[in-house]
């Protein structure tokens, strides 16, 4: 039996019935990382000692007859944006190389208290700025299905680690598609929850009005187990909402007869490659055969999404990146002439894409341009939000492609920034509206996976996971 290939429930049952020990499970995961990661480059840091110690704690609890959580002893990883106490956290950037946080992000703390086993930290686009994890000062993760291609991004290392069974699940972040898109490229399940569902305390910020913590795993039930254990209000993140957290894993058996699926015509245009359109449509028809009702809907402001996002996001980026000055954390130059020179030199460590976003944001927020860019974008954001509100009066979920492409090669979409930005066209609108959305693998083209997005209303996670569980 290959322990790394189990589902979370199977692994949990195995631990409970003492078929295998948590230490064996952690070791299997570690061996997998050692065997594959030279090729896949999914990890910046592997924390072998901490992981083995944690596994021992779980084994001791089991041997003493203590009741354990479904995530106890389960090997997982986190994008290197999550602060982890005593373990280097770089955000994928040289500007934070060597930074060892003295505290855990709230979600890491929760998993720590449940005795989940953190195996390491994943490669990514610096601060989450990208679509292929190429924009980094560290290694670029490769796609386990075809290592000559990227794993997507920005949570590319997380997706590669989960797909290749290096870990059972990984925490990523999704601001404009950074969990859904790499999940789509690697053929796994990726959840971007509603804004405010999961605490972001201790998760290094990119665009604060859009950032969410997402979950990558190999099946819907695994995602549900993780979500129900990490979601909920957090006193340290004022944007988390005071709403009960359902037992998602017990509510996956939904009757599709009660579900109306909307297919937005703005997503299925002539611009969408025909083969991708066919694969996604076939998956939707399959849901219809299983009882769901399908209808065409319209989200008329879809085409403005990218422009809105790439104003709002860089504006918020320019504010969030101002803290990186090499004074309180991160490397700093020796013997600076004065403070100004020190800032300038220290900040040369940013990746060119980060600098670009800081520059666009600084420009759009500068005196005289605020109304023309930031304010205007936030107004159009209202129109995009209203499109969804109107749609959800008629349908329960919206199904569409996650990306208009399959896994691509390094440099293919990233040499020109605007081309890269336009690649987020299908994932951005749900982010702007704060909705939840799930990537489900739904077929393949030339051996490369195609992902379908199931978008739900705010806090409709239960419903999209239920529909996701019925896909193929």
């Amino acid at each position: 039996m290959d322990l790394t290939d189990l589902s979370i429930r199977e692994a949990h049952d195995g631990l409970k019935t003492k078929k295998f020990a948590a230490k064996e499970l952690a070791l299997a995961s570690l061996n997998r990382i050692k065997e594959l990661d030279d090729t896949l480059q999914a990890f910046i840091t592997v924390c072998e000692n901490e992981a083995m110690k944690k596994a021992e704690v779980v084994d001791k609890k089991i041997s003493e007859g203590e009741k354990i959580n479904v995530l106890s002893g389960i090997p997982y990883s986190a994008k290197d944006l999550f602060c982890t106490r005593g373990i280097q956290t770089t955000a994928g950037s040289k500007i934070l190389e060597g930074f060892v946080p003295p505290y855990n992000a709230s979600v890491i703390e929760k998993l720590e208290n449940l005795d989940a086993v953190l195996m390491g930290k994943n490669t990514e686009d610096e601060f989450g700025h990208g679509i292929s994890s190429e924009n980094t000062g560290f290694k670029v993760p490769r796609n386990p299905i075809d290592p000559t291609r990227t794993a997507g991004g920005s949570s590319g290392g997380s997706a590669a680690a989960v797909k290749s069974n290096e870990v059972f699940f990984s925490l990523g972040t999704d601001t404009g598609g950074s969990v859904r898109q790499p999940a789509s490229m690697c053929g796994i399940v990726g959840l971007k929850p509603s804004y405010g569902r999961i605490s972001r305390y201790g998760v290094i910020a990119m665009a604060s009005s859009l950032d969410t913590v997402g979950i990558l795993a190999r099946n819907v039930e695994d995602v549900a187990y993780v979500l129900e254990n990490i979601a909920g209000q957090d006193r340290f993140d004022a944007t988390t909402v005071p709403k009960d957290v359902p037992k998602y894993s017990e509510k996956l058996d939904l009757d599709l007869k009660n579900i109306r699926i909307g297919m937005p015509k703005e997503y299925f245009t002539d611009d969408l490659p025909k083969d991708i359109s066919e694969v996604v449509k076939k998956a939707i028809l399959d849901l219809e055969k299983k009882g769901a009702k399908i209808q065409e809907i319209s989200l008329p402001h879809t085409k403005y999404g990218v422009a809105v996002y790439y104003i709002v996001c860089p504006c918020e980026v320019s504010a969030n990146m101002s803290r990186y000055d090499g004074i309180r954390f991160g490397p700093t130059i020796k013997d600076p002439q004065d403070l100004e020179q020190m800032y300038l030199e220290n900040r040369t460590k940013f990746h060119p894409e980060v600098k670009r976003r800081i520059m666009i944001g600084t420009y759009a927020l500068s005196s005289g341009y605020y109304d023309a860019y930031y304010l205007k974008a936030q107004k159009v954001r209202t129109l995009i939000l209203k499109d969804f509100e109107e749609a959800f009066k008629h349908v329960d979920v919206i199904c569409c492609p996650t990306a208009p492409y399959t896994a691509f090669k390094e440099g293919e979409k990233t040499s020109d920034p605007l081309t890269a930005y336009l690649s987020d066209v299908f994932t951005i609108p749900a982010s702007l509206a704060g909705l939840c959305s799930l990537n489900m693998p739904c077929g393949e083209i030339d051996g490369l996976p195609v992902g379908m997005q199931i978008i739900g209303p705010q806090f409709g996670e239960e419903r999209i996971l239920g529909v996701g569980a019925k896909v193929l």
Partner: protein
Amino acid sequence: MALSSDDVRKIAKLARLKLSEEEVKTYSEQMTSVLSYMDILNELDVSNVEPTFQVTGLTNVRRDDEIKKMVEKEDLLDCSNLPVERGQIKVKSVF
């Protein structure tokens, strides 16, 4: 909207970024292209639309003012690569 090299230098100064002449040239081209794309928003009349700055609807989130220590001050100071004196990080003079 075309951004000149001088515009780029001015923005870089505001953002405390040191750019090489080559970077100035590249960014002026790339930012011009990205910002021109944003013109698509001018197709819409939004004079009567309220902006959306946040999506949760939460306002004035409060909690009890109880002190819960997560991190010691010394641990935070330890994150800095600069010298620490009397509980503070020492930097070069501003002027």
